[in-house]
């Protein structure tokens, strides 16, 4: 083959900075072409998707509301992914966290409890998510089972479990038998930040999480361990770092963050527990983590950008009648381009003029 991939002698700094921009630019071009194929005006479509949502406070608030769970979950996932530990079950941990926190809300519903309820719910949510995430972690550490598959299978289990609870034991007795819990009391609801809007305190928590993760990764021993295990596993082992402890830690933290995102989402924008609380946040967060290059601040930006595409996609459905599936196509393409451009930081493509056949190539 005349084209080969070759490892660079050192990481290319220019590409490291330019990569996300190149990826976004490539995606926009591809999308413009797709719009044209669908018979829509590319300029108008791109404007509706990316620029319009930025033009008024309502949309900006919605972007923040949508980005909050994404950023929180993605930061947790990034800790795992940096260390090459693949937690794919964030969606399940999100649900279990929501369920754990909701338990308290349902128990105290209608009674005259104090303001301690909400912080307690958040704590329970984080705890629930962490414990659920430890299941695949322990399966890996103790039994060597692939954490990708165990964490993924547990997503389905969590979904069915929550479905059972809201249709059975936790169903609102005054809700005409419809499968939701009673509306959470005001003390059990996440407060909004702006009157009339949906922007809520969860956004602030998400920002705090980003800051905490930056500190963790940059300035603590644990953070150093995570980064080292990902970059040079053998060296990490030589230094005496315990890979098992790391697996348990990163899974627990990412599970806690996913669970926290879950209870905040339920106690905030939704207001009660019902069968459909997540449009796939746990999986979209995986994209956000990679888009943000596994860096907390990068994830914040990536989360906001992806939330923008969701909002833009919904606007496009109304304004120019573009199907919502296009947003998924866009997100998939974007992820591919980002991954490819990131690969160019470590590798380069070279043309080989004369191809010398290896000595014994007999297949």
């Amino acid at each position: 083959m005349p084209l080969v991939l070759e490892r660079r002698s050192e990481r290319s700094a220019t590409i490291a900075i330019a990569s996300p921009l190149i990826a976004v630019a490539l995606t926009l071009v591809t999308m413009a072409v797709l719009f044209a194929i669908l018979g829509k005006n590319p300029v108008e479509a791109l404007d509706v998707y990316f620029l319009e949502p930025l033009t008024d406070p309502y949309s900006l608030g919605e972007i923040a509301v949508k980005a909050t769970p994404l950023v929180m979950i993605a930061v947790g996932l990034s800790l795992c992914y940096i260390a090459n530990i693949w937690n794919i079950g964030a969606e399940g941990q999100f649900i279990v966290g929501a369920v754990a926190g909701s338990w308290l809300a349902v128990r105290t519903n209608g009674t005259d409890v104090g303001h301690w309820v909400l912080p307690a719910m958040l704590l329970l949510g984080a705890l629930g998510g962490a414990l659920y995430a430890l299941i695949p972690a322990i399966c890996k550490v103790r039994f060597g089972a692939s954490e990708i598959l165990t964490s993924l299978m547990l997503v389905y289990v969590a979904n069915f479990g929550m479905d059972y609870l809201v249709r059975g034991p936790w169903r609102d007795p005054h809700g005409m038998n419809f499968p939701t819990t009673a509306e959470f009391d005001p003390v059990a609801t996440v407060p909004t930040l702006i009157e009339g809007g949906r922007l809520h305190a969860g956004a602030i928590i998400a920002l705090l999480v980003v800051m905490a993760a930056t500190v963790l990764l940059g300035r603590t021993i644990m953070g150093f361990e995570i980064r080292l295990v990902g970059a040079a596993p053998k060296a990490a082992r030589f230094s005496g770092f315990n890979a098992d402890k790391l697996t348990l830690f990163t899974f627990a933290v990412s599970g806690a963050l996913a669970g926290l995102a879950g209870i905040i989402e339920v106690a905030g924008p939704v207001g009660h527990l019902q069968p459909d609380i997540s449009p796939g946040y746990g999986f979209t967060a995986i994209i956000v983590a990679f888009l943000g290059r596994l860096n907390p601040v990068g994830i914040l930006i990536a989360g906001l950008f992806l939330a923008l595409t969701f909002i833009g996609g919904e606007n496009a459905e109304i304004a120019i009648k573009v199907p919502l599936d296009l947003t998924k196509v866009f997100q998939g393409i974007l992820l591919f381009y980002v991954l490819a451009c990131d690969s160019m930081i470590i590798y380069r493509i070279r043309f080989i003029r004369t191809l010398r056949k290896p000595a014994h190539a007999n297949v």
Partner: protein
Amino acid sequence: MKKWNIIAMAAVLAIATATFGASYAAEKLKIGFIYTGPIGDLGWSYQHDVGRKAMEKALAGKVETTYLENVPEGPDAERSIEQLARTGHKLIFTTSFGFMDPTLKVANKYPNVFFEHATGFKRAKNVATYAARFYEGRYIQGQIAAKISKTGVFGYIVSFPIPEVISNINATMLGAQSVNPNMKVKIIWVNSWFDPGKEADAAKALIDQGVDVLTQHTDSPAAMQIAEQRGIHAFGQSSNMIKFGPHAQLTADTDYWGDYYTKRAQAVLDGKWTSEDTWGGLDSGMVVMAPYTNMPDDVKKMAMDTQAAITSGALHPFKCPITDQDGKTVECKGGDHLDPGQILSMNFYVKGIDDKIPGK
């Protein structure tokens, strides 16, 4: 540099034209529809879209419609509804129970926009509710099933144990029992409104267990298609599924929303819209029975007679006395039949159904 200027100007021009064009078209009444499933489900959402198109045709030139499909019944629903309200839609139909709270929240913020929520029970000054009395069609289906079935057992494929589904199961059973008091039913919950693979599997399982008439409260034609394949009979749901079961379909209780939608849109145009609760059935044409096919003439006559009786009000599917499966007589709040409130919150099986309601 020059090239970028030109591109920028072109962009601005495009945006300006679009906005100008959009505002110029604001003379027509903009009506929005939110569907929980795809319009291609050939069931619930499909029928709402049929209604939308019928209304568009009836009020051609005066209205402009937008629809959003596949909107999940979660937090995203509120944003979708609000988006419609913000973009100049003055009448918005939210077509699934799960949109109830989001609809009310948005309605609160936009007092000048009118909302219509299907199958819900909360109203406001600018929120009306509407639903169809499907149970009327179910009663007829039950009677037909009892006449057609040779095994004495009919099958029911259902989604979730909400009152509407339970009342429909009961109505079917009561209809069947009026012909054959020993009729039995086998019920499978697929936990989804729309999952063709699972509905097909459920149909096969029911048939394997001796059922020879199928009915469903799910949205795809999968079960009908399996019935056709296996040579038994079935009832279509929400829409006429004869295309999938030319020899299998007996009838279908289809929803017809077109007249209601046209009426409500006209009310907005006339400035006379008010918040009401509409529960239409066979009498108002909201429930329409698909033509009776694949049955002997005497069964067809019986069905049509029952249909006439229900339409005129002479027969009520839930006429008292009604005994629940534990043997207790249910209190009769509507005179000689159950009242709407009882039907809307039905949480028991009638006598003759052996299963337990899941989650009780």
